[in-house]
């Protein structure tokens, strides 16, 4: 199966959105944890106030993303067998995509810019 096989375009938008939503959810979750950890290291009143406000905002964002994903049936926190199927399917499909060659082998593009980054210090020879 290659990138051009029509079988790969079946449910593609849905699968892609599910992946992006999962990334978004995990980022929101990690944000809540990071800020909570930072908060426990903080003493200054203004830093605490800001982190606390952003913690609440993060918790709310996390809830909104979860609710959206549950509504779209991209996330099944209660139907664990459904969730198990989704987990396995996304892992399998992503492994299949990872096996394909999606990009040109040589992706060096520096010659296309009018000036290579760090040219003046020999950065192109790094």
């Amino acid at each position, binding site marked *: 199966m290659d990138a051009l096989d029509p079988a790969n375009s079946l449910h593609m*938008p*849905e699968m892609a959105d599910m992946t992006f939503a999962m990334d978004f959810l995990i980022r929101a979750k990690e944000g809540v944890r990071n800020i909570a950890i930072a908060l426990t*290291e903080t003493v*200054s009143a*203004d830093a605490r106030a800001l982190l606390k406000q*952003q913690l609440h905002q993060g918790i709310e964002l996390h809830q909104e993303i979860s609710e*959206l994903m549950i509504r779209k049936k991209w996330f099944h926190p209660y139907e664990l067998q459904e969730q198990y199927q989704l987990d396995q399917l996304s892992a399998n499909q992503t492994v299949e995509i990872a096996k394909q060659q999606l990009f040109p082998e040589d992706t060096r593009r520096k010659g296309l810019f009018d000036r290579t980054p760090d040219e003046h210090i020999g950065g192109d020879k790094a």
Partner: protein
Amino acid sequence: MTNSPEHLAGHESLDLHEVINFKTLCLAKSKLMQGLVFDQDLKDLMQKDVIQSMQALQDLQAIYTKAPFETTVPTHRPTPILN
């Protein structure tokens, strides 16, 4: 809390460094991924995150100026990659 000191403590500043970098990456991702997403509701929620994150970063940066290692910020990367 007594009168607030001029500088943040070292441990607070390092956590602020981590939170700012995480937030910066999230902002970049939410902004860029909107171009790949198909679902309009998901896209709208990401846009909401972009707006909130820009404000959040601005607030974090303002407090970061009180880090003990605070210094003037040049408009471009100051040090070359190679020595």
